[in-house]
């Protein structure tokens, strides 16, 4: 954590004036109440935006965040609405639930996706052609929400005696157990034989639970993507409002106290375990609720959807948006879901990749002329390398970028594209990681010197290797690196509040 954030803005001798309030109220404390005012607001453009954002009243903020979403369905087609809109919203709702558990209460719940899957499967069991039952959604959805909350309670009860860290392993194993279970519980040869009923096809096994009914509230069937989109949007708005008030409430403050220091919170007679369970249940219920939407949208529940990849995606959203920030999850979901969706076409992916690289360089490198030197240097370096390699080793420049227009043709003359580049690209990937790590160790102009080959290596690896698996491994590599980098550079995320540390 940068030095600037430690004890930032703490007024001199703050603890000496605890009795500034005339009438002490339970659960309120002057020092705690001023928490928001002690936050560090950065200088420059970001600080200006942050202060402006603070000045908007909460309903206005909600409208600003979700307003563009309400317009989106009218300016796009069905496919894009599903991929960019609906999935982003579903991720946002999921991240909101996870934010309660991780961001408010500080519990590392790695089984969160299991609750999401549980919701989808349970809804599918109650209302699908696969199971033969067709419950109305107004009955099924509350049942799912309550059962998921109870499941969360059960898992939490097992874990509450444990130290905080152990929760991570119990929940991670729970997710794994859930995936194994739904993959096999098809009443087949190797399945359990249940008491009284014998073998039952619960989940359809690896083929998934298909033909799930659309959500059907009192006879109003939601059948279109647009319908689900607005249903999810309303749910998101309601949940965000609810969480806003929960966050202000006594429970919300207690959760934050729990997150900052469970021991101190317990010493202040905060019922630590009950609050943990409550947070856990809240999060699980939201995940279960989202599961019903996802199951109905997909009209099926498939085991592959509820794995660690999704867990990491949701974590990345919460971390990027800022732990404990309610509005942040929307932005986080937009970035984390939107970016890889754009990456689907390799031409878009290319623009995004170089764009983010240049932007990160211009923002991250100070003073600005160093960034410019690095950029110009990398460009020159690339052409030089290309010319040299082209002269000695003709295979090294034999490849061509597919598509990409003028930009792609320009890149052809800059980045090395050997034929059969697999092995070379593998070593280059390794070298890139080493170079990036070295970059964190050097300072000043040396950083610029190391930056130039690193950037070129990044471009080389991107064009020769990463671009092949953009929606698979590459996406998760970038998300994993993002988690590490954010934790090291800005632990509070984009929208998170910098912590007030008292030493």
């Amino acid at each position, binding site marked *: 954590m940068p030095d600037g954030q430690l004890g930032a803005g703490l007024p001199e001798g703050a603890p000496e004036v605890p009795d500034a309030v005339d009438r002490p109220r339970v659960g309120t404390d002057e020092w705690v109440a001023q928490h928001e005012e002690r936050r560090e607001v950065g200088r420059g453009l970001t600080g200006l935006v942050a202060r402006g954002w603070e000045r908007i009243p909460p309903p206005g903020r909600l409208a600003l965040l979700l307003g563009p979403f309400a317009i989106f369905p009218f300016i796009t087609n069905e496919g894009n609405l599903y991929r960019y809109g609906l999935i982003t919203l579903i991720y946002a709702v999921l991240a909101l639930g996870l934010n309660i558990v991780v961001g408010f209460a500080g519990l590392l719940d790695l089984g969160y996706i299991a609750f999401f899957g549980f919701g989808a499967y349970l809804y599918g069991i109650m209302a699908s052609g696969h199971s033969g039952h067709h419950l109305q959604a107004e009955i099924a959805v509350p049942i799912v929400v309550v059962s998921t909350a109870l499941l969360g309670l059960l898992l939490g009860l097992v874990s509450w005696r444990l130290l905080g*860290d*152990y929760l991570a*392993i119990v929940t991670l194993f729970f997710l794994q157990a859930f995936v194994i279970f739904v993959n096999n519980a098809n009443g087949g040869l190797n*399945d359990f*034989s249940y008491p009284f009923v014998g073998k039952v096809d619960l989940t359809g096994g690896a083929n998934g639970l298909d033909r799930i009914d659309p959500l059907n509230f009192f006879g109003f069937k939601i059948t279109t993507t647009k319908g689900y989109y607005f249903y999810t949007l309303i749910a998101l708005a309601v949940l965000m409002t609810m969480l806003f008030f929960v966050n202000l409430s006594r429970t919300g403050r207690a959760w934050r106290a729990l997150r900052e220091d469970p021991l101190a919170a317990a010493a202040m007679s905060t019922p630590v375990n009950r609050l943990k369970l409550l947070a856990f249940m809240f999060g699980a219920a939201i995940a279960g609720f989202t599961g019903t939407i996802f199951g109905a949208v997909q009209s099926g529940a498939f085991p592959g959807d509820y794995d660690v990849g999704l867990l990491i995606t949701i974590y990345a959203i919460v971390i990027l948006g800022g732990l404990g920030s309610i509005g942040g999850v929307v932005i986080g979901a937009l970035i984390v879901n939107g970016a890889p969706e754009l990456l689907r076409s390799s031409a878009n992916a290319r623009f995004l990749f170089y764009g983010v690289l240049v932007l990160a360089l211009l923002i991250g490198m100070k003073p600005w002329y160093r960034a410019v030197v690095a950029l110009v240097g990398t460009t020159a370096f690339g052409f030089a390398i290309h010319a040299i390699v082209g002269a000695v080793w003709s295979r090294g420049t034999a490849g061509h970028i597919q598509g990409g227009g003028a930009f792609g043709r320009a890149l052809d003359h800059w980045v090395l594209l050997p034929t059969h580049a697999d092995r070379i690209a593998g070593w280059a990937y390794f070298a890139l990681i080493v170079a990036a790590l070295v970059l964190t160790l050097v300072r000043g102009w040396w950083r610029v010197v190391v930056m130039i080959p690193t950037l070129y290596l990044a471009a080389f690896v991107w064009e020769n290797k990463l671009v092949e698996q953009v929606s698979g491994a590459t996406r*998760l590599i970038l998300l994993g690196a993002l988690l590490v980098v954010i934790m090291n550079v800005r632990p509070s995320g984009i929208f998170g509040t910098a912590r007030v540390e008292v030493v």
Partner: protein
Amino acid sequence: MDWSLFFGELVSGLTLGSIYALIALGYTMVYGILKLLNFAHGDVYMIGAFVAFFVLQWLGGPLSPAVTGWFAVAIMFAVAMLACGGLGVAIERFAYRPLRSAPRIAPLISALGVSIFLQNSALLLWGPQFRDYDTFDLIGVKTYNIGQNFFISNVQILTIAASVALMVVLVLVVSRTRTGKAMRATSFDREAAEMMGISVDRVISFTFFIGSALAAAGGVMFGIVFGQIFSLMGFTAGLKGFTAAVVGGIGSIPGAMLGGFLIGLTEAFATGYLPGGSTYANLYVFALLITIFLIRPTGLLGSPVIRKV
């Protein structure tokens, strides 16, 4: 009762258990010193298996190795352990050290990021397909029949013996050497150890080196015993090793070994005897974890935690 089956499950449980125990040792040592669950540990184990595989390729492949089979295996172990030891040190240096004074959850999330990063890098570079160690060709697997249909193979004996040997070495290092003493001191109280002139950073690096090297040894053993490795093998194995460390009492070295063998035996016997065992063995391991947590939250050999304010 079919004692032949019983013996078979016992041996395969011990073999699995010794691999889990090696992984668990890394978790438990790191936790003892940093109070950090190192999620990336399972992926270090996977990378160890792959490094050994590439060493084997470099030596000429399992069918025609440049040196005799057993010597090739020794080289594979050595290179994989050294490489992964270095990897572990690098992970600690770049992903965890900057976060040492951060709130508890920050290094955990960083660890999660490293794990996903390593796993998918492996997927990107080496693909999802299985790679063959071809143990049969490499060292000639022999199966011995001791008593009446009690089968045990030389590979299984090797695995159990080698891991026990590594554990003995580890215990000796921790209990008898100066570095071991420094490790124990750091684990007991990091600040006090630092005041006594112990270079805490170096001790932590050393711990990561040892832990990751042991995990790599476990990965190579997995490859030799089962003949095949794949880039997603780290997740489940890491989870089991993790469970083993917690079941045995995290922070306790004998606990990790006990936990590892317990998990391995549970898995093997569940596969052999319990309903739905072949598919749901992991569910039974999970049930064991929960049960032990309910009875003894600090694990079998863990000491009750005294928290200082």
